């Protein structure tokens, strides 16, 4: 084998490996991405009998935890996620994230059951006063969140100021 032939076969080997890796990658991507929808989108899709919101289909839904909707049995948590045009009822078993509160944003990951209740396998509550996930921006306007964050900060400040 000449030097050039060696180099060529090396390059071919490398390309073959890269191609294999790319193939696995694309296959893995399809099975492991989860889409995000707002409650309104979910209702619309359900009306169209869209398969993506069928029972068992994995997805994420986000919005605000509707004030007054939260109840708990300790390990089981029940609440409604709203974008002020539509609601989705969510059930979650486990320990709630520290930031979870009524009137706060939350993204739930899981799937619906036959009764149109969303069983969440994980919850992500808004992580930082200043951080708004891109999906949230899809659900609420930007000014809303800027104002809302400021509102939260003021609440903390006011409470502290109110203490002796």
């Amino acid at each position, binding site marked *: 084998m000449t030097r050039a032939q060696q180099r060529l076969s090396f390059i071919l080997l490398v390309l073959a490996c890269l191609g294999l890796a790319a193939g696995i990658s694309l296959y893995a991507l399809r099975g492991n991405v989860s889409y995000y929808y707002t409650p309104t989108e979910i209702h619309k899709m359900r009306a169209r009998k869209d398969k993506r919101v069928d029972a068992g289909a994995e997805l994420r839904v986000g919005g605000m935890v509707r004030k007054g909707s939260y109840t708990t049995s300790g390990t089981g948590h029940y609440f409604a996620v709203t974008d*002020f045009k539509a609601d989705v009822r969510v059930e979650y078993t486990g320990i709630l994230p520290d930031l979870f509160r009524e009137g706060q944003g939350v993204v739930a990951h899981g799937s619906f059951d036959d009764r149109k209740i969303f069983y969440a396998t994980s919850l992500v509550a808004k992580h930082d006063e200043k951080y708004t996930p891109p999906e949230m*921006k899809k659900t609420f306007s930007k000014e*809303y969140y800027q*104002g809302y964050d400021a*509102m939260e900060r*003021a609440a903390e*400040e006011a409470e502290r100021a109110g203490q002796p």
Partner: protein
Amino acid sequence: MAHKAALMPLACFAVLAGVFAMALLREHNPAILPSALIGKPAPALELPAALKGSKGLTPEALTGGITAVNIFASWCVTCVGEQPTLMQMKKDGVTVLGIAYKDSRENIALWLQKHGNPFSAVGLDEKGRAAIDWGVYGVPETYFIDAEGIVRHKHIGALSMQDYTAKLKPLLEEMRK
């Protein structure tokens, strides 16, 4: 051959940068958040005066004519930006009422002194109860109420001069009829 291979990284990067730029451009579309109150009577308004020696807010304040109710706070940085617009509205003869959300009297006084006072009356909503009644979810927000006390429009976020001249002035004209 070598030259072609050397161009590949640049080509890949150019595609990627293009994708990133497209993704960025898509970030610019805020959804509109309607208020459940549109078309309904404004909630009752009973708030103590935020400024010493002036009036507070009472339900009558909303039925005297067209009013704009502006929810603001002295700690709200965005609110500073809309003061010129509110001053313009006052000059144009709109009655602007203020609800100071979770604030203190000294801070409000200082702030209005510094940035101008467009309000005929300012009520102090110390605990945020009124805000909950009005469905306020952010600061600042401005409600436009017609002469019968019906909520006609809710503007979320700072009122820019463009918002006022392009959208709200025509709305106010319509409301006067």
